[in-house]
């Protein structure tokens, strides 16, 4: 089922190397490093969609397991070459690793967590939806657009049909002017420190994305740690994601449960949300 993903990766490696070589010969010196332009992707879902397309079948028929493995291998390679990867990509890696385990291990009847098939269907749905939105965007932008193919009166005659305002300004300009000034003032005397800490806000966003639409219990902490943490970051990740999850519970976004002390912490999206 997953035997061909290796071929694909090797193939990818060479083609990526080719394009890398054209751009920057220094990258070529270490030819064992896969040249990956992760910057070229609009986030992990985009990367997944790209990988899915390489399966050359309709999105409805892709192998989600193979896709998960390709993604994980991809991320693993990049991490080995010590390229910094945005947390978004690692969050998805964590989720896919979880998905993979659900798909490969038969589900015990008592298991409270969602089935692998259910998770896979969810991922497939999200890929299809993203692709659909992307296609819709292409169709929109290729329509006959005002000022390009369709034109308004070139020499409008001055009439004011509405009221006789002497000055024009809109709310957006007003808000923008305000924001820029406040920000400008800050920049002059504020230099943000780069700390190796997970901001609560980041942790919160990541958790929310991880939980996504799951209506069933998910145990995430293990995956989070494996994929997101360098050893020295364990504490901050656990602390921040735990605090953020409490906050999410308080606001009614998620529910938490733990069957006993030191058992994995399970979470899911709150039912009535």
């Amino acid at each position, binding site marked *: 089922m997953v035997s061909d993903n290796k071929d694909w990766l090797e193939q990818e490696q060479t083609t990526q190397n080719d394009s890398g070589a054209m751009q920057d010969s220094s990258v070529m010196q270490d030819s064992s490093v896969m040249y990956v332009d992760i910057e070229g992707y*609009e*986030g*992990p*879902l*985009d990367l*997944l969609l790209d990988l899915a397309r390489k399966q050359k079948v309709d999105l409805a028929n892709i192998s989600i397991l193979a896709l998960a493995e390709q993604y994980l291998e991809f991320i693993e390679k990049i991490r080995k070459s010590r390229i910094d990867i945005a947390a*978004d990509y690692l969050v*998805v890696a964590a989720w896919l690793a979880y998905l993979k385990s659900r798909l490969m291990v038969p589900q015990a009847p008592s298991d409270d967590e969602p089935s692998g098939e259910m998770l896979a*269907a*969810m991922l497939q*749905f*999200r890929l*299809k*939806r*993203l692709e*659909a*939105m*992307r*296609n*819709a*965007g*292409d*169709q*929109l*932008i290729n*329509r*006959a*657009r*005002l*000022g*390009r*193919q*369709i*034109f*308004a*009166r070139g020499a*409008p*005659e*001055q*009439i004011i*049909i*509405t009221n006789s305002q002497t000055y024009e300004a809109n709310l*957006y300009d007003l808000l*923008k002017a305000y924001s820029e000034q406040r920000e400008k003032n800050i920049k002059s005397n504020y230099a943000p420190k780069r700390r190796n800490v997970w901001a609560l806000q980041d942790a919160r*966003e990541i958790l*929310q*994305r991880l939980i*996504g*639409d799951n209506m069933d219990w998910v145990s995430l902490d293990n995956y989070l740690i494996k994929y997101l943490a360098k050893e020295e970051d364990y504490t901050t990740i656990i602390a921040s994601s735990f605090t953020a999850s409490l906050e999410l519970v308080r*606001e*009614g*976004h998620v529910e938490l449960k733990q069957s006993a002390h030191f058992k994995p912490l399970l979470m899911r999206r709150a039912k009535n*949300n």
Partner: protein
Amino acid sequence: MTSETVNNQMSEDDRPDLELRNLRIIEALIFASEKPVAPKDLQPYLSDMANIEALLEKLAKLYKGRGVNLVKRADEWAFRTADDLSYLLRKDNVETRPLSRASLETLSIIAYHQPTTRAEIEEVRGVSAGRGTLDILMEAGWIKMRGRRRTPGRPVTYGTTAEFLDHFSLESLADLPGLEELKGSGLLSNRLPSNLQIPMPFDGPLRDDEDPLDEFDEEEQ
């Protein structure tokens, strides 16, 4: 300013001269304007009993098949060059700043899922919205903040504007390309398709689950 002092005993339909006059006035006012014009802005210039919608439809019919058409955008009207001439009139040198992929994707998500929140947009794209996607779209005048969703956190809801329709030559959201198909496939839902109702993009007045942009701001600050 000049008020119509017609003694309107008869119905408008019986007064072809009055109708012609109304048509000419509507034509002149909309023609003079670069932007779509709302019927209520025409009202003061017309005779008291004028049926504006009927007059507009009549004028639109008159211009059908011509080089310039009278088109409806949301509930407003404008003259625009005919779309079948677009290949001929095409201007390619107007490229200001091409829309980034992220912005275009965000725009289509808002268009098809509206009213929608930032979190929902991020959920579809699977990535957090960087600075410069929403605000570029607001700057272009294509999207706006509509209200606040009545859920915890009361997030702001976004929707498209009348300028959006005008720019992309859409009479209403129902004309969005591929909408029916997307609706049919369940891809406009936030959840995995089930027997849930399929939401349709909606740019009308605030919905039951939306509040106007207010109140909460006070508490927040």
